[in-house]
């Protein structure tokens, strides 16, 4: 990364781009990654609720799982997941499994 010179910085060296930490992916932090088994998911939203990074996203649509039909589905954005495992710990149906990352 090349840093800007003193004359190129805005006054007060303020950060002008909101939410710019998105440039920094934190995927490399994790040793275990959460995998959602959609057939066991009952859409209680707890993983989405408690994720400290907001990496569990809610997809809208029609999802047919076995004999059941849901209007939402939860997926993990692995770019930012730090692998803390709160989602797997809170999941009431044990639908989230923490799988070791293989390099």
């Amino acid at each position: 990364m090349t840093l800007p010179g003193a004359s190129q910085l805005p006054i007060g060296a303020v950060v002008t781009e909101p939410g710019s930490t998105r440039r920094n992916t934190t995927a490399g932090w994790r040793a275990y990654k959460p995998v959602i088994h959609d057939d066991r998911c009952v859409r209680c939203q707890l993983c989405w609720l408690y994720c400290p990074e907001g990496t569990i996203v809610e997809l809208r649509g029609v999802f047919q799982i076995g004999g059941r039909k849901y209007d939402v589905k939860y997926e993990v954005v692995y770019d930012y997941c730090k692998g803390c495992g709160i989602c797997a710990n809170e999941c009431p149906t044990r639908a989230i499994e923490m799988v070791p990352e293989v390099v």
Partner: protein
Amino acid sequence: MRFKTLRDLPREELFAPGHRMCAGCGAAIAMRWVTKVLGPNAIVANATGCVEVTTTPYPETAWMHPYIHVAFENAAAVASGIEAAVKALRRKGRWTAGDTKVVVIAGDGGTYDIGLQSLSGMLERRHDVLYILYDNEAYMNTGIQRSGSTPKFAWTTTTPVGAAARGKVQWKKDIMGIVMAHRVPYAATASISHVLDLANKVKTAAEVRGPTFLHIFAPCVPGWRYPENKTVEVARLAVETGYFPLYEWDHGKLRLNPPSNNHLDKSKRRPLREFLNVQGRFNHLTEEEVAELERELDSYWQYLSKLASISS
């Protein structure tokens, strides 16, 4: 309008990922929900602390709001100035952003200890500011030093455990009592484990005119010494054992919120041991020390029940 179910909660994320908070950070969950519920029309003044250090690694920021970082001791004073400026511009017809809320975000060091005078001044001058305290019970980002919020007997790097010392010597300061003594219109405690309750309190506190205060319980993985997937579990145990009661001070009335409203009866609370046992910072406790903590907790609940019955 209150949020009744999890489906009513806002979906838009206003706290960017990629910040450097620890995996499993309790304060990150708190910040995510505070920003979601506040919505985009807010100005944030952030005292030095974990959240400030980890969310603004120059030249990046995790914030999507207009944001200013100020020193430990003056976040509330800066927010007072912002609020006064917004008011003046509005009077002159030059404020076009509508109903903007000014919010302070500070940790327990910036609230209990260093920022207490500016918080008191802000409350006394009746600025229309929402003060949010995320309480992780020590100075975590500088390396786990004790603060006014650290509970008795807790291990920190400045209150070591050994033959001569048994962790922190003093009791935890009652910050809510200090805030309520300023006769603020609204103050509340919330926990990251009870998100619906937390979201409703952020909403109410943002809507009430005048100084409002929110005390959010946010467990810390490295400082409290528990596995990183247990953050929400620890926060939930704190509420269910009665260690951190959920209540709100609403225009002179104290109201206990579920599940703490059942906890006036001691038998409805889970044993305090369950909360202490999951954390490494309490590993050294003896039976007598746990009994002492339990006695103090009982007397705190008696104080709360008196306050609730006098004010109702």
